[in-house]
């Protein structure tokens, strides 16, 4: 299978955010993460782009993304005070969206920092 190489890739495992990683990808997995430390290498090699799960789960049952999004919006709509929590392992673009969602839902947004 063809190997694609990505230079200057960024590892998001720890706060060092090293951006000199050379990733070798083969199909739906990364086979090599040059320059990464042992933690970073495990991080890159552990994740794949395989379809291991359904798009979504509702009450533990496989569901479509559309249905899950609809249900999520309904839950947030009905809540008096929803909490949006986490934000560590996501991009800042996603964090921006999380804030917007909390604002719209009239809820609370919080991260690992508060722990």
């Amino acid at each position, binding site marked *: 299978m063809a190997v694609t190489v990505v230079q*200057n890739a*960024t590892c998001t495992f720890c706060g060092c955010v090293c*951006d*000199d990683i050379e990733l070798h990808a083969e199909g739906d997995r990364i086979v090599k993460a040059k320059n990464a430390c042992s933690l970073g290498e495990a991080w890159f090699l552990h994740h794949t782009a395989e379809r291991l799960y359904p798009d979504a789960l509702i009450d533990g049952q496989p569901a479509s993304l559309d249905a899950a999004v609809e249900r999520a919006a309904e839950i947030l709509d009905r809540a008096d005070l929803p909490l949006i929590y986490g934000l560590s392992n996501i991009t*800042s673009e996603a964090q*921006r969206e999380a804030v917007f969602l909390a*604002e719209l839902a009239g809820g609370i947004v919080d991260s690992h920092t508060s722990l």
Partner: protein
Amino acid sequence: MGRAMLRIQGGKVYDPVHGLDGVRRDVCVADGRIVADVSGGRVIDATGMVVLPGGVDIHTHIAGAAINFAREMIPEDHRRAVALTRTPVRRAGIGGVTPSTFATGYMYASMGWTTIFEAAVPVLTAKHTHEELRDTPIVDKGCYLLIGNNEIVMDLLEAEDYERARHVVAWLVWAAKAYGLKAVNPGGVAAWKWGQNVKGLFEPVPGYQRVTPARLIAALAQIAEDLSLPHPLHLHCNQLGLPGNFATTLETMKLLEGRRAHLAHLQFHAYGGEDWSTFRSEAPRIAEYLNDHPNLTADAGAILFGDTVTVTADGPWQYLLYQLTGHKWGNMDIENETGCGIVPYAYRERSLVNAVQWAVGLELLLLVQDPWRIFLTTDHPNGGAFWRYPEIIRLLMDADYRRERLKALSPKVLKRIVLPDIDREYTLSEIVIITSAGPARALGLSQKGHLGVGADADIVIYDEHPDPGRMFGRPRYVIKAGEVVVEDGEIQKTVSGREFIVRPAYDETIEAFLQPLFEHYYTVSFANYPVELERIHSAEVYSWEEAVRQ
């Protein structure tokens, strides 16, 4: 385009670029620009109102790592700040002296300002600045690259390789997706990396033999000219804030003879005296020099009494301010490029130094005769928050009010300032010049600061009111790119503004020179250093050959 047409009729138009001084005439808008005439569309009856081009802020700190550090340092201010409640057309936010990004856009627009320039951006964190600018709605914007303490550039000047320094600077402007060049305490911030500062303009920067602040200032002003940047070198002089610093400022201005430059927040650089106890105004001497030298423009950096937070790349000054005040201190040195310091501060009427500072800002605005060369700023938030500009406008337009305010100052202060002797009152046209037409011209933004055909339809309409502070505090309408965004002081619609970026000419092989140095001095990959153009939403790029609209 199909954007709504608009006619503003019956208002008194102030458009100094076209010599209109309160002339009653219609202003017509189509597709976001001023046009000669329209048939149909919305009509705004501006009878009893004044019609002005939208404000342009040439120097403010509203986006990026430094102001965001300041936000972190003063949660106590946020708690007492104006709260911006979410509405269907407006994001939530907080005001105060470091408004959140959404609030910044709304608050500028609700005051009638439609174009703003973030004055201090390192390349290394420029992605962050642009992300914040993206979240600053309504206004058009741009930013200046911090270059006065860039060690790669300083090393090249040490080696007397001006040519290569110029290419590096041009490459860095484009890497940062910046609009202009900014130098802060040239050499002094680099010295602060070892806990030092520079002494005077002519002693070498610590660690260098040939590079002095004077050499840096001259070279960077020349580079800005050689690169044909639309805005000249934007200079925060050495010795900011210190008694007697007017001498350094005068020397700096002399160095700049024959070259264009913009002097930032001049108020902080116009002090006499030997120490804090003999602190006094030297605004007349600074203003006199500026009056005689049309190569220079300046912004006021006026201060207003009250609480604020100081935010500047001038690391050594901020450390001194921390020692003087005993307040909180934040510091953030950026590898190879610049620094940043944060100190909360309160300007008090009873403080001799603060009272003199208050007078100096107004004195400069009143003593510089040509309004096209001095602009209204508070160096937000350093001298006071931008949303307090209407207070300054009132002080400039109303000499009786000024005298009233002077009564609150101690007689000791009055001997150290000249403000009591100044009777000048700004006309409304002159206010339009120092808040819009002048800064637009200094920025090289030909589509801003006026209401001529082809200009961006950034228009502000005020109810005429005898108190200019009240008039400017609450516009009746604000129109941005042809859209009515504010009515009766309230946001009606959120549009997103554009970002102005300059792509100066450079030899592409400069990257081969930079990369090995970069790998030695930096901790990010060279490929990940420049801001990607795709990151900028609604970029308007001025290339060295022609303006390319994206």
